[in-house]
């Protein structure tokens, strides 16, 4: 990879260059404000997209940067959602506290499982993430006295945000809130990736054997990034609960994890914006094609996956940057 060879020549210079804001990034974030002015009817959808983008970003940290393929990331999303939901239902309905509770719950679970995750690679790792996710879903299913099973958690009331902005039908509050949280978390993730820790993660992805050999504590790094990623997924889960006031078992399930993987890879894994772009395209497409039965929708997803893997190995963003690079060379 060209990025790595540049890095070898001057890591500090490279990191500094990466930290600088590109004009396209500014344009991207300004564009996220457009729905307020031009698509006021779609704010609810926009808030769902922002939340899914956050979820995809959390997977990108472990998959795109550290190379950990997970088929069970929805476990943390669901944990965040259920923790925030149960907290709001039984204790205290203030949204920001609920957000923190969801985050902490997912982070704790992520930290506990990270000790297992850090020990394995390849198929065993995929199976362990899948198994942990399924285990959690079964647990939530058997604890139906608490979670209300597949009918979903009912009777959650979320108080107005900051005591003033209530979650309305139009989604003004929901979108502003989700977008603000997404942006803040994105800044954190961006900082993390453009640090020496971020470089160490990329090292693990490129060669998991060499990193310990040059003295990098790879397992500790994986544990940290996995916990952070779980916490971020928990934030996304708590947000989805607070903006929709309900959560069901499918938010923990394998389909959710697989879908997330599709979005991330569609956008491009390992480039921060990949998950954001992929989830936007995926969610808008699903909204547009919501008329067709879900099983046929999966036909197009499947086809898209095959096309992306064969022709666009780095996703849409990877393809675009390749075109841009060719154009610049001319």
């Amino acid at each position: 990879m060209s990025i790595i060879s540049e890095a070898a020549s001057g890591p500090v210079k490279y990191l500094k260059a990466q930290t600088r804001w590109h004009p396209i990034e500014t344009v991207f974030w300004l564009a996220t404000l457009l729905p307020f002015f031009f698509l006021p009817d779609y704010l609810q959808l926009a808030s769902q997209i922002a939340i899914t983008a956050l979820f995809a970003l959390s997977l990108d940290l472990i998959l795109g940067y550290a190379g950990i393929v997970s088929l069970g990331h929805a476990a943390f999303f669901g944990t965040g959602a259920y923790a925030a939901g149960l907290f709001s239902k039984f204790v205290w309905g203030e949204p920001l506290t609920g957000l923190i509770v969801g985050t902490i719950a997912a982070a704790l679970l992520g930290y506990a499982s990270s000790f297992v995750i850090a020990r394995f690679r390849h198929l065993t790792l995929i199976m362990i993430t899948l198994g942990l996710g399924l285990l959690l879903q079964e647990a939530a299913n058997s604890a139906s006295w608490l979670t209300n099973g597949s009918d979903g958690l009912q009777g959650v009331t979320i108080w107005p945000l900051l005591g003033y902005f209530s979650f309305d039908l139009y989604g003004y509050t929901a979108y502003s809130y989700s977008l603000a949280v997404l942006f803040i978390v994105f800044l954190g993730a961006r900082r993390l990736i453009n640090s020496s820790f971020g470089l160490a993660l990329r090292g693990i992805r490129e060669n998991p054997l060499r990193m310990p050999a040059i003295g990098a504590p790879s397992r500790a790094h994986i544990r940290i990034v996995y916990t952070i990623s779980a916490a971020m997924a928990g934030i996304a889960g708590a947000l989805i609960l607070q903006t929709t006031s309900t959560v069901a078992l499918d938010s923990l399930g394998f389909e959710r994890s697989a879908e997330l993987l599709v979005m991330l890879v569609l956008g491009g894994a390992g480039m921060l914006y990949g998950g954001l772009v992929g989830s936007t395209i995926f969610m808008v497409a699903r909204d547009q094609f919501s008329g067709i039965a879900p099983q046929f929708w999966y036909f197009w997803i499947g086809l898209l996956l095959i096309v992306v893997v064969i022709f666009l190995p780095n996703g849409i963003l990877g393809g675009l940057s390749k075109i841009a690079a060719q154009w610049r060379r001319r």
Partner: protein
Amino acid sequence: MLPPVIGVLFDGIAYGMLLFLLSVGLSVTLGLMNFVNLAHCAFAMLGGYVTVLLMNSFGWPFFATLPMAFIVTAAVSVGFERVLYRRLYRASDLDQVLLTIGIAFISVAVAAYFFGTTQQPINVPSYMRGSFNVMGLDIAVYRLFLVGVGGVITLLLIGALELTRFGAQVRASVDNQRMASGLGINVERTFAVTFAIGSGLAGLGGALAIEIVGLDPNFAFTYLIYVLIVVSVGGLGSIAGSLVAAILIGVSDIAGKYYVPQLGAFLIYLVMLAILMWRPVGLFGKR
């Protein structure tokens, strides 16, 4: 009189045999090429639909459809292998996972398009339906038949792998691919044939599974999880490992559902995680 635990054990073994048929092909091809094929159960589903189509639309008898389920699935899988899979042998796990999940998604949609999303009914011959009583224990004929088929196929596979020239080539390729090709073994062709046989067995398993677990378009994903569990617990590339793991998972699943129904599928996931933590390469895995 035999205690009911024997009955649970028997049902578990019959179910395990089914899982073995569904998963043994994946285990061998994974061990051979390290290719993570999540579309394996889509091939099994294809076998099931071949049987349904031949029986319900063409009036074929059940037993005549079984070889067809094997042949059609094997032929289709080789097509996929030559056109799509071959490109990704050296790609990352992630690319393989994505490509094959894509194929599985498409298979679900195609099955739903042609057959609808409902369960497919088939009529197995009446003499396969009943059960007989052995010392106070009800033995279902069909389950006994499954155990028989599973046993015969295990023997055939082990025999073919241990005693034939082709089997020796497969074993050599699993052990060391580069060395095997250095000795003049055409690893790619060995793999294609093994892949076809493995997928064919999955197709046969899918056809045999209809009577026990039914068939609908979600089969490709529901049983994928079981198959992956069997493969990773048993160890890649090991037929004996797949058999032991399949029976272990089958018995745990049936026993769990019988004795502690409130746990649901909890038990097999626990068994899997425990075994993988103890031996990351699976019970019989070498690498």
